[in-house]
């Protein structure tokens, strides 16, 4: 199977202009290169400030990179104009970390899931409702809750809603930006299973952004490690976990809490 997403030497600089005083520049991404195979999962691991979210936004076309290319499904999406981009948006969807903030709490479940369909404007009201209900079923939410407001759902249920909404437009690539990090332990397992089931069922490709190496190790085929805007390590999950090349990778793996841990040794500074 081909590589669904190819990112080549991606760079992103932010400039802070001031009325008086010098311009300041921040480099969020520097020369990032990787690819994801269709139907597989790439875990992007890094600490806060490493540039993971900036990368996610660039791929989802919410930000424009300042250099480099993103080739999605054979097309270079960094050079597209507004109109052409609108065709690409449905194919790449995002699921965010905090379902309390990424969902409108006053909307009902069915409204939330149906919103992308409304925006897209292709289906009529009845078709939209039946598709929304089908999506709710697909993510394991009971039909009885379809009319409940988002604020009445638990954290795990809200995240299911966010996933259902992301699936509404039948995307090919799902970017999960720390989508499990805010959930309880047992709920993380539930949602992880859901994601794997959906991947098998719908042939989805995942970019799974996280700082949790344990979950990355469980879900991913390949793992990429980021540090300060650069991609420092990339390889098959087994290899990266078993024999990491980079110091930062070793450090992150060592910092991951384990059930079988002994008293933690002081971290080498």
């Amino acid at each position, binding site marked *: 199977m081909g590589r669904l997403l190819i990112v080549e030497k991606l760079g992103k600089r932010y400039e802070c202009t001031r009325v008086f005083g010098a311009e300041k520049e921040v480099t969020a991404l520097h020369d990032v290169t990787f690819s994801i195979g269709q139907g597989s999962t790439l875990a992007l691991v890094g600490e806060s400030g490493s540039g993971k979210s900036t990368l996610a936004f660039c791929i989802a076309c919410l930000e424009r990179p300042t250099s480099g290319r993103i080739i999605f499904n054979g097309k270079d999406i960094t050079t597209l104009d507004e109109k052409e981009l609108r065709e690409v948006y449905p194919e790449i969807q995002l699921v965010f970390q905090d379902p309390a903030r990424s969902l409108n709490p006053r909307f009902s479940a069915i409204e939330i899931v149906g919103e992308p369909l409304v925006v897209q404007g292709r289906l009529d009201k009845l078709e939209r409702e039946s598709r929304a209900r089908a999506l709710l079923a697909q993510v394991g939410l009971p039909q009885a809750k379809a009319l409940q407001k988002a604020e009445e759902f638990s954290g795990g249920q809200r995240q299911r809603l966010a996933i259902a909404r992301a699936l509404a437009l039948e995307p090919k690539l799902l970017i999960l930006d720390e989508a499990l990090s805010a959930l309880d*332990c047992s709920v*993380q397992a539930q949602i992880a299973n859901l994601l*794997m089931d959906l991947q098998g069922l719908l042939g989805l490709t995942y970019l799974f952004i996280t700082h949790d190496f344990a979950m990355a190790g469980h879900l991913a085929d390949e793992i990429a490690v980021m540090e300060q805007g650069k991609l420092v390590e990339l390889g098959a999950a087994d290899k990266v*976990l078993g024999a990491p090349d980079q110091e930062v990778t070793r450090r992150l793996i060592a910092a991951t*809490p384990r059930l079988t841990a002994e008293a933690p040794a002081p*971290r080498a500074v």
Partner: protein
Amino acid sequence: MTPLLHIQDLRVAYISRDGKKSPALAGVDFELGPGEILGVLGESGSGKSTLAMALLRLLPGNAEIEKGAVLFEGQDLLRAEPRVLEDVRGARIALIFQEPSLALHPTMRIAEQVSDVLAAHESASRAARGQKTLELLAEVFPTDAARIADSYPHQLSGGQQQRVLIAQAIACGPALIVADEPTASLDPTTQQDILLLFRTLRGKFNLSMILITHNPALLAGLADRVLVLYAGKVVEIGPTEQVLKFPHHPYTRALMQSVPAGLADPAKNRKSRMPVIPGEAPNLAELGSGCRFESRCVDRMDQCTQREPAVVAVSARHAVSCFKYGE
């Protein structure tokens, strides 16, 4: 040896605007010895934060302590006078809240916020307090303490803010520190540092700690004992290794299996379905009369719907609340 803290049959309920009662803690019972770290394992809805707040009577207005006692250093905190309570808070028992960025005053410098804790309990001079503040900050910030002292909370990272909370907690030399999800919003390396800091402080000051979290892996290697909380009830309590490696209660067992073991044996576990606890945490306002975990339990039996299981000892220090192990 008399325990430092003894919680007896604590029952707390929340009352909604239309008068409905949700029992958040339904008879929590445990002891804590001096210098001991107890891990409280609980997910959302388990009552863990309610427990932390109830200890110091910091519950919101719509909560009601229905029953129980919190015996600490010879007195029942639930029935103590407000002045006594003010003396205990921060000085004998310190609470570290979730979300460090929200727990600090946005427009006061760090030094002042730490110094205020000292001022509340000690009558030293301003200069003496200033000196002690720097010492406390140096305890948690080996380098950099002076700069941090002068900063405002928004200028610090999450990990640094958490360390400030810890400095405030140890300021008056408490006997017990209760930390509610202290590493929830932190990076793994920062998390590791904070947990290590707890260990160091425990050794240095002989502190007792109650560490509340939903992630069992955090407690391994840090806690002496683990207490598992589900829907306001203690379902299992015992030495850490016992509870994590040989969990008895079906909930505990299922919880341990939810922790991805991706690092332990990669090739075998990759992309396999994780065993999950079916269903959701129960709605506390609509509980039946039986075991609270029954509806999600793979080992459920007939008697589980009829009454709640009593606490059964499975070994000297390990107890479970489940019909599987006795009546």
